[in-house]
């Protein structure tokens, strides 16, 4: 039987600087990656066709992959931007930078391909979606920050929550760049979910330390036992979901799953290193004064 107990970390061995250094370094690297990406490609993250415009065609073809790709290239006049295959099913996802859905549908049918789905987004509509998604993310983040400040009414613990939530979003974005995952509606949904998940464990920690009587380290341990359980449960569920959804070719769920896994792992680090060190600094400096 697997043992699952949250280990008690001896935080007294580390200074606040040591604790905060690692998450801040990770955040800095993530921001550097995104900034570098922006300089190199002109966009902070790779965007999918929902944002850039384009057409995605899914076709089912039996047979070996190389032959199938050959058949796909022969079928369409336009050069596909990418061809991906869905494991466990003989389905290929083909994306085109441009080209009308009607034209591509006709070409696919003329070539006798079994069209599973076609979705086409025009560039201007994609730009609108992008504004909406970024705006939604910004408003969500701002709303969350205001609410956190309203709930705790003290600066340091509140800003600790906000910074770690920020990092929870930025680090997965950088990882998406590195791993070639495109920003899609699914990943935007996952980033929004991350705001909620990330704040969960931070509020729990702040609440235990600030609003409960008792020793700092004891409160921390109690909060950690609950918080780590929560986050690990979510990570397990999301890893399983990502694997299943990838096998089935349900891109939306797979995208949500992978981004949440990144974000939740980042959240573990941020909550119990960055947030905790800020809280400890706040608590003991306050006591000393």
């Amino acid at each position, binding site marked *: 039987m697997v043992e699952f107990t949250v280990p008690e970390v001896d935080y007294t061995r580390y200074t606040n600087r040591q604790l905060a250094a690692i998450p801040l370094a990770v955040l800095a690297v993530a921001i550097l990656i995104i900034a570098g990406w922006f300089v190199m490609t002109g966009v902070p993250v790779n965007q999918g066709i929902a944002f850039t415009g384009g057409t995605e065609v899914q076709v089912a073809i039996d047979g070996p992959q190389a032959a199938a790709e050959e058949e796909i290239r022969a079928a369409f006049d336009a050069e596909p931007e990418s061809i991906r295959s869905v494991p466990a099913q003989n389905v290929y996802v083909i994306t085109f930078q441009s080209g*009308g859905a009607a034209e591509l549908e006709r070409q696919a049918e003329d070539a006798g391909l079994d069209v599973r789905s076609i979705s086409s987004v*025009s560039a201007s509509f994609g730009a609108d979606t992008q504004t*909406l998604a970024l705006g939604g993310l910004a408003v969500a983040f701002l709303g969350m920050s205001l609410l956190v400040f309203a709930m705790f009414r003290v600066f340091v613990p509140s800003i600790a929550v906000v910074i770690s939530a920020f990092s929870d979003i930025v680090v997965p974005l950088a990882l998406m760049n590195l791993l070639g995952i495109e920003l899609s*509606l699914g990943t935007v949904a996952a980033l929004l979910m991350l705001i909620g998940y990330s704040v969960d464990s931070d509020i729990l920690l702040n609440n235990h330390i600030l609003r409960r009587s008792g020793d700092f380290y004891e409160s921390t341990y109690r909060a950690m036992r609950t918080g780590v359980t929560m986050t690990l449960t979510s990570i397990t569920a999301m890893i399983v*979901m990502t694997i299943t959804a990838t096998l089935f070719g349900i891109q*939306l*769920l797979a995208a949500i799953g992978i981004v949440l896994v990144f974000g939740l792992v980042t959240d573990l680090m941020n909550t119990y290193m960055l947030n905790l060190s800020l809280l400890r600094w706040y608590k003991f400096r306050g006591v000393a004064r």
Partner: protein
Amino acid sequence: MVAIRDNWRVILLVVFLLISVFALFSPTLGPDDPDSGGDVAAQGSATNLQYGLELSGGTRVRAPLVGVTAEGVDFGGDDRRVVEQEVAAEIDGAGPTDVIARFGGQPAESQETAQPQPGSETSDTVEVTAEGVSTDELAAALDAAGYDYETTREGVTETTRQEVVRILENKINEAGLSGGTVQEVTTAQGDNFILVEAPNQDASSVRQLVSERGTVVIEAYYPASDGNYTRDTVLQQEDFQSIGTAQDGSSGPYVPVTVSESVAPEFQQSMRDTGLAQQGGTRCTYQADPSSTEPCLMSPGLADSLRTGEWGENPVFQLQTTNVSEAQEVSINLRAGALPAQLDFSEESGGTTSFISPSQGADFRTNSLITGIIAVLAVSATVFVRYKDVRVAAPMVVTALSEVVILLGFAAGIGYPLDLSVIAGFIAVIGTGVDDLIIIADEVMAEGEINSRRVFQSRFRKAFWVIGAAAATTIIAMSPLAILSLGDLQGFAIFTILGVVVGVLVTRPAYGDILRSLTTIDR
């Protein structure tokens, strides 16, 4: 009585679950309208759930309307029709049917669609809905025709959009695309789109149906006194009293139509005057599309009855067409009416099209269900391993699942179509739900046994502060997407918020009660 008062939260949860199960499975609560409802979506499913396009297959088309509008036009006392003709005469490629003049943003004639809309244009407007007409051309045409105006802009008026939605709905119903919907959507940037969804239809047939203006006019084509052939519009859409369904008769396919009594005598007279109703019959034309005019013949019998005046007593004739599908098209167009403006499917228009084959939809439906179940199993396994106590973990899994059942019941009850984004919402709800239940469990069971109800209550309240705070942040984070009507992520946001609300108010407190009854020593 004491038991009820103590366990009211659990009882509330059970009531919610029963209502949801009823909404999900009761045959009495099936889709409201068998014509437009889920006889397609409900195929092969035992529940009342309706599935969106991603899970059932079908086509979704989102496109703006072709057109330019001048606002604040001074008609100078001219009649609407006069304005339309004057302006149309000044624009290349636009006929009178492509120009719409409206008083105060509404048609001057009282049509049943002319509901005053709050916030819609209040000035007099002229719209040109022909393709390829720029705002500058409209401005020039208005200048040339001698009408003052304030501004010209891209797009059409609110009233026109509503007419388009109504007519497209009619067309979809007439064409028998069950479950099809048409709605107007506005993006965050204020752009207006028409969104058409049709289950189980492929993209090209839907696009064909909605992209045609569908203007049908009966024109007389006859030699005038000077010997040249003249063309007159003798009957328009609104002149027909009733339109039959397309039929395939011995003399070829046709659509039986009845001309309304008020127009019939006039039509009869003009047929006689133009000499079309001569012995042996003659030619007439009908026009289904401004670019294509189809000729049709007047039968000797009809010509005779027109001449004798008998026809006026029973103003019925048959519109002949060359083939059956054309007859169906004419019938649909005549019944549904002509679109004042057409949908713009060009690439730069900002539209989107998506088509999901029914087999893909069915696969997604099964596979996403399997994915969800596997995710729940993973959660269950983790909490069982963590707590090593079935009394804690089992109710946790059951409570988290009951949130999904309640949400599914809600979706079935209001007929909200399930899409992948809604399923993503369910996953988010299970995720935050289990998080909250872990907080409750840890808080309640902290530091040994609970030996009185008072201790339990105090711990429960503490746990609830965290849960409430987390719920509030989730709701705030999701609300922008729930409000903006951009569709694709709206379902996700709505169901996440709903799940959090149901969770915090109903299911998660009930878990607290269940846990208490299982762990409190002194009850």
